[in-house]
């Protein structure tokens, strides 16, 4: 399958502090990839860098190759801002964590849905309206006509996130970046939105980068998982492989720290001790070793682990993964 997006050695820094280190990953057409990690691990920074929305204070190195709808492949990091704008909202779209705050309070929903369309595919006003109605129906808004003329404050959180999804889908993007799209929503609404996303992915064949810290969601929606820790991908692979046999102690720790409501026998929640390190003062060696139960002095605190394949498609960054398995 064709990769929609592929990063090579993506490195992001703010001033002297590097927050993302040599990240390489790719997402194929139609694939749902989950980017998982604790808060502060650099997930949202990666998402914003793909969109080119990090702002001038960030320095981004490496490459981000995107295969566009028109068949062209380009490196987003070398494109001038003018050409990036033609891609943003068109080939690449993003939905955000805070649906309550992500719509402009002074415009009606209709105008906000058609805004991206009007920029990327100019068409007459009547056609825009028809398209907006179609989009609202596709995200299962109950009364699309009333919704078009509503203001954001008149909608519920779930409705607003549906509107955000409709906006993101308006130009049929190749890749949808969903940055914790359900974190701010009620559990029932959360399930509806996830269903919606899954269904839309099946209909449109777009790729999805799903950013979350909710491992339950990952198991439901993702084909592949990238586990991030302190700005690095520490384990990646097919969802079933990573969940079934996590090789990196951090991934295993994340799994054990997750509440499991429906386990047959009650399972203790074991939080990972300590906190995500400050990116300005990363520990030497493996960044996880101070919190790791398996770390060996003189080994884990000196050499930085490189990704190694432990099974087909399943990669891990751990110096001791072979010993730990045994």
């Amino acid at each position: 399958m064709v990769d929609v997006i592929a990063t090579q050695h993506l490195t992001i820094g703010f001033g002297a502090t590097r927050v993302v280190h040599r990240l390489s990953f790719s997402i194929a057409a139609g694939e749902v990839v989950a980017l998982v990690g604790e808060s502060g691990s650099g997930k949202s920074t990666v998402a914003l860098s793909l969109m080119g929305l990090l702002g001038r204070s960030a320095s981004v190195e490496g490459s981000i190759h995107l295969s566009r709808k028109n068949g062209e492949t380009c490196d987003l990091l070398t494109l001038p801002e003018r050409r990036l704008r033609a891609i943003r909202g068109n080939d690449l779209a993003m939905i955000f964590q805070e649906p309550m705050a992500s719509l402009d309070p002074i415009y009606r929903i209709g105008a906000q849905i058609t805004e991206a369309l009007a920029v990327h595919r100019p068409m007459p006003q009547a056609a825009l309206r028809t398209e907006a109605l179609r989009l609202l129906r596709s995200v299962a808004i109950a009364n699309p006509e009333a919704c078009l003329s509503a203001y954001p404050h008149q909608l519920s959180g779930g409705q607003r996130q549906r509107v955000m999804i409709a906006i993101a889908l308006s130009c049929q993007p190749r890749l949808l970046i969903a940055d914790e799209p359900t974190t701010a929503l009620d559990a029932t609404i959360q399930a509806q939105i996830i269903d919606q996303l899954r269904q839309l992915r099946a209909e449109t064949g777009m790729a999805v980068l799903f950013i979350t810290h909710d491992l339950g969601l990952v198991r439901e929606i993702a084909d592949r998982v990238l586990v991030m820790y302190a700005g690095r991908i520490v384990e990646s692979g097919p969802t079933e492989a990573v969940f079934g046999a996590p090789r990196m102690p951090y991934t295993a720790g994340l799994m054990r720290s997750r509440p499991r409501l429906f386990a047959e026998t009650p399972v203790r929640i074991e939080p990972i001790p300590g906190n995500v390190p400050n990116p300005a003062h990363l520990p030497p060696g493996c960044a996880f070793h101070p919190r790791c139960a398996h770390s060996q002095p003189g080994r884990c605190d000196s050499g930085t682990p490189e990704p190694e394949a432990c099974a087909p498609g399943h990669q891990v960054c751990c110096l001791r993964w072979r010993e730990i398995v045994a």
Partner: protein
Amino acid sequence: MLAILARRLVWAIPGGIVITALLFASLAGLIGSPAALMLGRDATAQSIAELNARLGFDRPIATQYLDWMGHALRGDLGRSYVTHQSVVEAVLPRLPVTLEIGLLALVLATIAAIVLNSLTGARALIRPLATLLAVIGITLPNFVLGLGLIYLLCVTLEWLPSVGWSAWSNGVPDHATHILLPVLTLSAYYYGSLTLVFRAEYDAVARRLFIRAVKAKGLSDQQVSWRHTMPNALLPVITTIGLSMGQLVGGAVVTESLFSIPGIGSLLVDSILSRDYPVVLAIGMIVVFSVVIANAAADALYAAANPQVRIR
């Protein structure tokens, strides 16, 4: 919007009564016996008392106020002590002059403050200049700025006629060249305060999450600014304009005196200097009501511009 306006205007009535009463009482207290003023220093106590009795100034202040209010409601604001002209006739022809200069200054200041502070990219490089102008506008007193402009443009460069007034009937070019400097002078302070209010709000709006979501749609920085950041930052500007509009007459005092413009402001100065009590009172009343009306209009406009207030 009309309902809000109507409600505010109804509430303005008791406010107007209280404020005119205070104005009336304080002027009466300050000026003392009007008859003594009118007759001059050589007047005898008896002639003063006679004139006071004839004009009704021997009555209690409350009675005088009610009497004045009764006449005012019928459109009669009395006669000037100095020219014996009807106050309404003295004030009304000067009102359009003050309003024209004031409104032009306010419009100019608003447009300049919004446009200069909504630019992005390379054009945003003029922002330090816009801020410098704002600081100058706020800190430099009107009479200093006005004198500076007169010296530069009228005396040194001889581009404009210095002072005085030219009515519309003398032709638009002549009118425009006479009105330019007073409008510029008066707009400087408005520009400064509007810039500070708008700039602070603009920066706050620019940090809100929906701006990032709008950028993700592929809009250019300037489109994001014109369509989203700037309109959202306008709300406090509307309130500030409402407050400034109320001060138009007050703000005109210095500028009109400086440029010898026959408006309300210069009339107020002349009337105070000659202790022309009825004229001062009438102008005070105009100021009070223009403040009330401008604030009511700003509230209504604010509601119209903000869907969260308009639609509940």
